[in-house]
């Protein structure tokens, strides 16, 4: 009788290589390296420390949003509301500071609002069994409108100087937005890969019915992932408001699509169940160097969107080939 032990031992060595090749991060990393090398070859300024730091800082906002988006997409869902949630929570933080609340309380208010909106999305999806794309499309519109109503359409400025810490300061020689982003990724990595909750996230995306029947409270974890998405959107709102030192009601436009693109470029399956958080980080940074490199090259913004779109299509095409 073949036992699992004797059969598995000699396979370990080879399986490590196949595991690397099968790893969802492998292809995104190769894509990243190619684009990085191209940009470095074409443009002399690209490799300067100043520019690279700039890339990472610009990528941090999408990078942070993409963490919550990853949780949602790994369960097979989608969250279209993150852009306006970021804008709304950013303006609310700014508004709370302007009326005199301490910075800490204002931030807590903004983050709490993001969490609440996310939980609302999650409740609609998990308990009312509504399709995620419709629910979050609706909250996307609602949050966009609320941000404009709250601000009257104008940016809220005149924020206390201390608030600039989250978007502009450096700590230990590293920009704070980058540190925040890395911290969020580290937490997400631990949750997704080392806790039961993370397993359930993947399991729901892999086969929701089987996961439910085996005794997992699927609704609870769906509520969780949308809440996380709302929270990371609000965290991105904090970083953005701090960098701009104002609450911008229109700031979030199109960010949901960039966040989804980052997750997909990172090797995740849009149908759920497959993907890793490190891939999302690579995807977000890939988008950032694309934006930056195309800017340095003086490519027109209109053409930039075309190029980005084409690269996303190419990435998905490569993934398809790999999956089959």
């Amino acid at each position, binding site marked *: 009788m073949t036992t*699992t032990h004797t059969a598995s031992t000699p396979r370990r060595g080879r399986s490590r290589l196949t595991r690397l090749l099968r790893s969802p991060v492998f292809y995104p990393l190769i894509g990243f390296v190619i684009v990085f090398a191209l940009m470095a070859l074409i443009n002399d300024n690209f490799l300067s420390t100043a520019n690279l730091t700039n890339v990472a800082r610009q990528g941090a906002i999408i990078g942070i949003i993409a963490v919550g988006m990853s949780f949602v997409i790994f369960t097979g869902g989608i969250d279209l509301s993150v852009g306006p949630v970021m804008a709304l929570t950013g303006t609310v933080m700014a508004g709370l500071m302007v009326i005199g609340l301490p910075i800490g309380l204002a931030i807590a208010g903004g983050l709490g609002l993001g969490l609440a909106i996310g939980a609302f999305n999650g409740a609609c999806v998990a308990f009312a069994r509504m399709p995620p794309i419709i629910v979050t499309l609706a909250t996307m519109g609602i949050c966009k409108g609320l941000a404009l109503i709250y601000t009257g359409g104008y940016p809220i400025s005149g924020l206390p100087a201390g608030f600039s810490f989250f978007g502009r300061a450096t700590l230990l020689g590293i920009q704070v937005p980058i540190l925040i982003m890395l911290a969020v990724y580290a937490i997400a990595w631990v949750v997704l890969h080392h806790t*039961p909750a993370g397993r359930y996230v993947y399991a729901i995306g892999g086969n929701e019915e089987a996961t439910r029947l085996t005794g997992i409270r699927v609704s609870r974890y769906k509520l969780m992932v949308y809440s996380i998405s709302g929270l990371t959107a609000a965290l991105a709102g904090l970083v953005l408001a701090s960098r701009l030192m104002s609450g911008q009601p229109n700031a979030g436009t199109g960010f949901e699509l960039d966040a989804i693109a980052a997750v997909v470029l990172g090797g995740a399956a849009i149908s759920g169940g497959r993907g890793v958080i490190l891939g999302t980080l690579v995807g977000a940074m890939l988008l950032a160097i694309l934006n930056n490199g195309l800017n340095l090259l003086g490519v027109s913004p209109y053409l930039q969107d075309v190029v980005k779109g084409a690269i996303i299509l190419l990435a998905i095409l490569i993934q398809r080939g790999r999956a089959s």
Partner: protein
Amino acid sequence: MSLLSLEGISKSFNGVAALSEVSLTLEAGEVLALLGENGAGKSTLMKILCGIHRPDAGEVRLDDARVEFRNYREASAAGVGIVFQEFSLVPWLTAIENIFLGREPRNAFGLIQRSRMRVDAERLVGRLGIELDLDTPVAALSVADQQFVEIMKALSLDARVLVLDEPTAPLTPSEVERLFAIVRALKREGVGMIFISHHMEEIFEICDRVTVLRDGGYIGTREVAASDAATLVEMMVGRRVDTVFPPRPPLAANAPLVLEAGITAPGSAQTDRVRLRHGEILGFAGLVGSGRSELALRLIGALPASRQMRVDGREAKIRAPADALALGIGLLPESRKQQGLILPFSCLDNITLNQLGRFRHAGVLIDRGSEHAEVERLMDQVRVKAPGADSVVGELSGGNQQKVVISRWLGRVEDVERGMRVLIFDEPTRGIDIGAKTEIYALIRALTERGVSILLISSELPEIIGLSDRVAVFRKGHIVAELEGEEIDAPTIMAHATGGAQ
């Protein structure tokens, strides 16, 4: 000259040999049984025949001419049709639309000629000698009728070779008879058929010859008339299978009640009552569609119902399968692929999914080392044939997939803190070869010795009779009889199941 011959076919995946030098021949108007345990290579061989896989060595000859199909389209154009276990019909299209899907006859303007499709479809219905509503969306048809649509789809391409991959598995006995009538009609027309089934009586009823595979190798071919079941089973498993069912120890007369459930479906006036004693196996017998699986799903909270439940004498509330799990009640569902397993995930991920709390360290983290060791131990205990805990479940054979599901629940049973009281096995041996069946029966029996009570849903009467301490017979959605001891025999069960006892 044979209609079809496969000669010396070999195929390996990722360096693992799935087939080595397998040959078979098929004559016109013949039904050839292809027999072998799950994982013996039957499906791979059929996929090579149909151009879905390409062989590493060997050749396929049709009418003595070598053919190399690059895909299923080429195979079907050459007259080789296959009806898979999983149907490939579009549920909301009608039978006619499904039959001609992708190659609808067109008129001069490029528009679909519905009238011609209908004439052709009706001719096919006549040819098979069946009655079938061609204008209903196939989702509304019975499983048997859906299968007939699949067969018609293959025949509409003038198939001369037709592969039927476990066609009888989802069918009721009377539907099997209808299928066999079709097989006989096609036989008379000279169609050669390859028939895959685990049921010996079907092979003896309908097949002319039988080719046996084992572990990817060719074992032999016999005339069915000159063979017997014991010989074929021995060829399949390479050893004599004497006692299929494990001995049944008498149930303690004072075994306490573990589960008392009164289940009422929404809108139904009738409450079905289930009582289960400690270490008892209660069989749910009945025809396919008689409501056994639905009752199980309602019991664990996966389908809506009003439930009055007592577990170990204490009142219990169940609203979701997670509540049932917390009470120690678990279900091994009928459809492993859709309801039981996450196919793209590893054995490890599938097995520990509902017991990650066992490997907790530092508060909330999972201790991967002890998890991995435990999974390998469970897989050894259940004898899952897989390279290791990290093997992808979807790549295992049906029997081994079922063993992975059993490993999961065995892990729960052995979990001292949480434990299990009741396990519901829904068709645990469907699509599983005889060798693995015997092992699964032994595992089920062993569970009762550990104090677990079993609800066994099965459409195979020998299984119900061989394992159950008591039997509840279902008819039209409800329990109509409870049998015990000497009452448990095939005629009595069938009489209640078909309504013949009234």
